[in-house]
């Protein structure tokens, strides 16, 4: 339905889009994800024929957006981010104007207008002036305008920005309802949004596509493995417990996270949710459980890393590859203990633990502690300044995985 190849667009010296290629099949709902200024809007404007591309080409419904622009525009419903509507007109008048622009048959107009108003929940507001609508209602009116010609492709630029949580849920539900009839390309920088609505996500940053796939796929492929967190009373033989966990089927590694009070914490790295197996083992061994949870990296963490530039050299895209060597823990020159997004690699264990399974670490942020004890190292230390802590022997584990 949408096919984009090697699209590039420059504004002066700024490359808003840089060699972007992707395809969207009929009936797909694709989320365009990226920080502000990533090129989402530019890409959408090119697809709608508003902006010409500097290089490359794009086709919508088989028509070239540059040379067959009118054909393309007949087939798309576009909701720009600013939600442009004539403030001085009523909602119904705005929709009638759109119907005339799209040359809808006169007989169908009233019925279609009533239907889209019903769809977006504005049926009782049809006589209101657009200028008097609240932000959320205006957003819905804009959506109604985009939907009116029953377009094959819907292009929605930040359809939920400025909405309150309830309205957001409603718009989300609406988009999900539209999936049956339309191909939808929507952009957002709100992650839960995209995760909830879009079976497929394209992450763009600085004009380039960083990742493309289902949220699950992306998370597994890009952010490293997930793990089961176990905190239990395992007795004195922690090493034995670790080995027992490592012997479970499907476990790739077990990291000992050390003692937490009387409990001991383990991260059982695995691809699937092994909570039942771990739980069964714990029951068999009579370990008193304090926590048993399935933890996986979120799209949000992945996105943050891409947006923060960790993937700039492309190394992040390699599954399991270490983009940067994690900062050496604590010991080196009294350096602050590193805090990593992903659990830091523990000692490799078990036969199924290849060294490459060490999760990727993001640029390391220093761990700092605000110590308010005035007698710590003399009272002259400014208490408003964090001090670096040295944790001899503790390793990074104390900070990681929380």
């Amino acid at each position, binding site marked *: 339905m949408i096919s984009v190849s090697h699209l590039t667009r420059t504004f002066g010296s700024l490359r808003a889009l840089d060699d972007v290629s992707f395809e969207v099949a009929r009936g797909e709902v694709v989320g365009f994800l990226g920080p502000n200024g990533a090129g989402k809007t530019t890409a959408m404007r090119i697809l709608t024929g508003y902006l010409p591309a500097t290089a490359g080409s794009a086709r919508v419904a088989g028509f070239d957006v540059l040379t067959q622009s009118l054909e393309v525009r007949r087939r798309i419903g576009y909701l720009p981010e600013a939600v442009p509507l004539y403030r001085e007109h009523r909602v119904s008048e705005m929709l009638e104007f759109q119907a*005339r622009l799209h040359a809808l048959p006169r007989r169908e107009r009233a019925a279609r207008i009533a239907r889209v108003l019903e769809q977006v929940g504005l049926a009782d507001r049809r006589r209101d002036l657009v200028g008097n609508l609240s932000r959320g209602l205006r957003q819905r009116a804009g959506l109604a305008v985009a939907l009116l010609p029953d377009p094959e492709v819907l292009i929605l630029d930040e359809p939920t920005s400025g909405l309150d949580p309830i309205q957001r849920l409603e718009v989300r539900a609406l988009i999900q309802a539209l999936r049956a009839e339309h191909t939808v390309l929507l952009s957002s920088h709100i992650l839960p949004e995209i995760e909830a609505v879009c079976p497929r996500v394209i992450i763009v940053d600085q004009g380039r596509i960083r990742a493309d796939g289902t949220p699950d796929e992306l998370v597994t492929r890009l952010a490293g493995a997930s793990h089961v967190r176990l905190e239990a009373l395992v007795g004195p033989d922690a090493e034995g417990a670790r080995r027992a966990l490592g012997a479970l089927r499907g476990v790739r590694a077990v990291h000992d996270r050390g003692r937490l009070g009387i409990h001991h914490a383990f991260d059982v790295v695995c691809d699937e949710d092994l909570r039942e197996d771990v739980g069964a083992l714990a029951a068999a061994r009579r370990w008193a459980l304090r926590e048993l949870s399935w933890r996986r990296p979120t799209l949000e963490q992945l996105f943050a890393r891409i947006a923060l530039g960790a993937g700039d050299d492309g190394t992040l895209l390699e599954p399991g590859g270490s983009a940067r060597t994690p900062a050496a823990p604590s010991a080196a020159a009294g350096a602050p203990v590193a805090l990593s997004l992903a659990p830091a690699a523990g000692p490799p264990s078990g036969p199924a633990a290849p060294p490459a399974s060490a999760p990727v670490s993001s640029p390391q942020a220093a761990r700092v502690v605000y110590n308010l004890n005035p007698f710590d190292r003399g009272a002259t230390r400014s208490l408003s300044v964090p001090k670096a802590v040295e944790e001899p022997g503790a390793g990074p584990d104390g900070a990681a995985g929380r």
Partner: protein
Amino acid sequence: MSGFLAIARRELAGLFVGPLAWALLSIALLLQGWLFVLYLRTSGGDVDLSLRFALGESWAFWALLILVPPLLTMRMISEESRTGLLEFLLTAPVSDAAVVAGKFAAATLFLALLWATALVYALTTAGLGVPPDWGALLGGWLGAVACSALFVAVGLFASALTSTPIVAAFAAVILNLVFVTAPLLGGLSDQPAVRRAVARIDVIDHHKSAFLAGVLDSSYLIFFVAWTLFFLFLAVRAVEARRWR
């Protein structure tokens, strides 16, 4: 075509739901009506002469013609580019030319209505027993509409150049002033080349010597049509150029 009609219709509706159109109409009516009475008094009751004054012979007519079209057109493109409505229109299945033409038609129609108010005076005097020269009146009205169309096209071009309505209005007024005052300045020169060049843009003379006299001369009509199309073409280009910026 349907897109052009839809846009023209919306622009007209947009004009009349706002206060600007009504304010302009009432000011123009007041001024013209007051002046018409004044002309009648000073000309000793010559209805035809007074109508000629109202439709082109007086300074008030030209002042309105210089100021009103820019006020109508200043928002039409520049403000829409700022609010994003232009993005909406340019991604609708309508060509850029249809967008500009629709706006042009709406503004010109509004001004045609404004000049048709002279008809009110003519009907009044006719009702009082002094029928005017209807042919001359119609010619004068057509000429006024032709002048308005040209200035609307100029205004749209200016509006397409900038995102600030007031700047657009200013630029349009200055361009209109060039058209109207060029013959005055050209008259200062005794170079025949300068006089010929000035004659090519002399709007006042083209209006007065044909339309206002009740003569429908195609060469005079073409003068207006050509200049109008030229500025409309520039306006369409300016709208297209926005896409590249």
